[in-house]
């Protein structure tokens, strides 16, 4: 009760501060007093403070199960464990937007602290642009999705949190992902402000690079967490389904990665300036679109949660205002001042080529994700675009992309030659031979996989060699690229070598397939505070006579009444053994899915390596 009230009023106060801040910033735009800086900083701190209070207000309401608050009523339940009461705060639409707002204000506050040596006007304008976004979100929150709506008479019990969200990884997935999404807002504001101040220079590149890296690292980790969750919770045994909700998180990642590489060019020489601004705008727009598409219910996704289309319209309008504002500013103020010295064989060119590929991947995903929506609007025909579409369009271009990653970093700035040709050729030959030896008896599509995998091996070996023999001046980049080659290799081998058995089986039965025996020993029932669980005991004997015991679980939640299946996964360095069990009401058969998935662990490790590359680049002292 009280907590909700405090939360609501802090929110209103925060909005008020937004206007006050913008007002003061505009008035003092030409002023050079020192005190002004502290004023802005403390006001910005208070804004952050109020949003935090508001957020805590919601958390406390959730912990106390205060069902006079509509959000709590819709998404919580007294029997839920404390941990999920807290994580339930951002496991719903209203709370997650409040979290967006929290991160928005946090980032601008940190930006103001960290950018003290930057030109004052640039900082003020960044603050202003950021406040425009913040005001938009405040209004959105208060108008269409107030987390503190009051219910009277208040119910005694809540509706409960969707059980598949009651999971430790999904508790931290949204905050991490949002840090990435919202981190791009500061890049957006800073880029626009730099455009108006004609400040897209080497200094700016050095300063904004940190923010790009931070956003990139969180986005990478956020996507990975979501993927891990989908792998073990959804019971399909895959980690990426090309589902619209996944795609919308990958799109800003692609533009952000492109931006990260372009900034490296700008650090060295004034080039690609327009492109950088456009990428900054696109990244944030795509992040907003992500929120919009996921929250509006427009997307037909396996991950879609019931939601409200009116909110979508608000975000859509807000989005269009931001796009027009930013493009307007870009065309009005931007002055092209690139140093036009381009040589074909240079690092810049290779980065440009990298961008070219990134934009291609982006457009494929963008079209695949939005085409069904357009078709539905235009012709009312319902279609869906499946994984084969993406695989077919993306994988052929991965091989040249990987080769580019081998050669690009070896080139110098401005003009260069390829050095160490012989060792590169040796590595290339080794990669091809290794691939052919491995693949010989494995796959029908030999040529296609040989090209792809040898390209990945080539990158793998060449980065490994660099890790061991080169001077460590660019270790962050090498690690990130090494991680990427490992990622592609693990994904490819995972998809080639995975095997699957799906069958319906009764307790006590044995099922044989290709010398693999699945024995369903027994089931055991257990009672937890908010669910009953059925645990299946399985003994699986593989071809070589070794056996594993797997215990997948079915959870029947009491509120809301939903069954979830918890896959049991035995992870080793080389492969995962995955077993998920399902029940169909009124039948004695259990539906089971058993999968052997090689190199699963390495997919996660390689993504972590990617972000470690980012972290090292962030921490690197400039020499």
């Amino acid at each position, binding site marked *: 009760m009280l907590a909700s009230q405090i939360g609501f009023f802090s929110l209103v106060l925060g909005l008020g501060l937004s206007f006050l801040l913008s007002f003061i910033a505009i008035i003092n735009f030409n002023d050079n007093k020192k005190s002004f800086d502290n004023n802005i900083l403390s006001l910005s701190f208070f804004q952050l403070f109020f949003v935090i209070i508001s957020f805590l207000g919601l958390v406390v309401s959730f912990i106390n199960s205060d069902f006079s608050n509509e959000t709590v009523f819709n998404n919580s339940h007294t029997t839920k464990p404390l941990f999920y009461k807290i994580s339930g705060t951002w496991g719903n639409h209203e709370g997650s937007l409040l979290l967006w707002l929290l991160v928005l204000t946090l980032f601008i506050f940190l930006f103001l602290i960290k950018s003290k040596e930057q030109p004052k006007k640039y900082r003020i304008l960044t603050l202003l642009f950021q406040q425009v976004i913040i005001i938009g979100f405040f209004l959105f929150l208060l108008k269409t999705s107030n987390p503190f709506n009051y219910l009277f008479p208040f119910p005694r019990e809540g509706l409960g949190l*969707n059980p*598949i969200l009651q999971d430790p990884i999904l508790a931290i997935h949204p905050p991490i992902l949002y840090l990435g999404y919202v981190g791009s807002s500061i890049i957006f504001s800073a880029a626009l402000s730099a455009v108006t101040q004609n400040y897209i220079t080497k200094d700016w590149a050095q300063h904004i690079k940190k923010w790009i890296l931070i956003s990139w690292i969180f986005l990478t980790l956020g996507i990975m967490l979501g993927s891990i969750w989908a792998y073990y919770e*959804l*019971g*399909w045994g895959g980690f990426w389904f090309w589902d619209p909700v996944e795609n919308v998180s990958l799109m800003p990642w692609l533009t952000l990665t492109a931006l990260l590489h372009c900034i490296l060019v700008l650090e060295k020489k004034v080039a690609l300036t327009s492109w950088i601004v456009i990428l900054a705008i696109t990244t944030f727009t795509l992040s907003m679109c992500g929120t919009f598409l996921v929250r509006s*219910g427009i997307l*037909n996704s*396996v*991950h*879609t*949660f*019931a939601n409200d289309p009116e909110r979508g319209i608000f975000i859509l309008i807000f989005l269009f205002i931001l796009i027009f504002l930013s493009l307007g500013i870009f065309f009005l103020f931007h002055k092209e001042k690139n140093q*036009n010295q*381009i040589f074909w064989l240079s690092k810049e060119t290779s980065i440009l080529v990298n961008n*070219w590929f990134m934009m*291609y991947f982006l*457009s*494929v995903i963008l*079209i*695949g994700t939005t*085409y069904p929506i357009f078709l539905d609007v235009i012709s009312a*025909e*319902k*279609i*869906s*675009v*499946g994984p*084969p*579409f993406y695989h*077919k*369009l993306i994988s052929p271009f991965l091989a040249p992309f990987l080769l580019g990653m081998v050669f690009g970093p070896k080139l110098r700035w401005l003009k260069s030659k390829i050095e160490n040709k012989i060792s590169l050729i040796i590595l290339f030959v080794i990669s091809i031979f290794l691939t052919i030896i491995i693949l010989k008896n494995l796959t029908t599509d030999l040529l296609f996989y040989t090209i792809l995998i040898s390209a990945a091996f080539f990158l793998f070996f060449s980065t490994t060699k660099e890790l061991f023999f080169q001077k460590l001046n660019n270790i962050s980049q090498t690690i990130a690229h090494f991680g990427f080659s490992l990622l592609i290799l693990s994904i490819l081998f995972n998809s080639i070598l995975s095997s699957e058995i*799906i*069958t*319906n*089986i009764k307790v006590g*039965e044995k*099922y044989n397939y290709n010398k693999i025996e699945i024995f369903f020993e027994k089931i055991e029932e257990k009672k937890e505070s908010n669910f009953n669980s059925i645990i299946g005991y399985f003994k699986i004997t593989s071809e070589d006579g070794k056996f594993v015991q797997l215990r997948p679980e079915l959870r029947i939640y009491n509120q*809301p*009444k*939903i*069954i*979830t*299946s918890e896959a049991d996964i035995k992870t080793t360095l080389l492969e995962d053994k995955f077993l*998920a069990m*399902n029940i*169909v*009401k*009124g*039948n004695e*058969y259990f*539906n*089971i*899915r058993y999968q052997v998935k090689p190199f699963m662990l390495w997919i996660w490790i390689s993504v972590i390596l990617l972000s470690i590359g980012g972290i090292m680049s962030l921490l690197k002292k400039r020499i």
Partner: protein
Amino acid sequence: MYGKKVKLRFLFLVLLLCSIILTVFLVLQSLKENVVYFQSPSEIKNLTKLDKKKLRIGGMVKKQSININSNEVNFIITDFKSEIMVTYSGAVPNLFEEGKGVVAEGFLKDRNYFLATKILAKHDENYMPPEVKDALGDK
């Protein structure tokens, strides 16, 4: 003649144009092959000819129609006007239940018989795929 700068710009534009055309062509081409259409049981009854392409069918799982044996799941999808028999051998999602919404992906054998290769999962018991909602009309 033209300066180096102009030539470079020109080359850039040509490259850009080529890659855009290539992208659009590739994307449209594989969209045509990989798109899966969605239909309701009634729409299938009214089809004039049967396509060999992959389809999605959505509706409700008819009450007491689920029948399981050791290698298949059989059930009936209904939109309360027409029905279609579905045979499926694969993993069923958690929320697959009698009287609940369902989307099955697969191939038509004839107007009354559908061979499913995938049954789509949902995350939320209140959530109904928009297609199913439309297909069911006011129900």
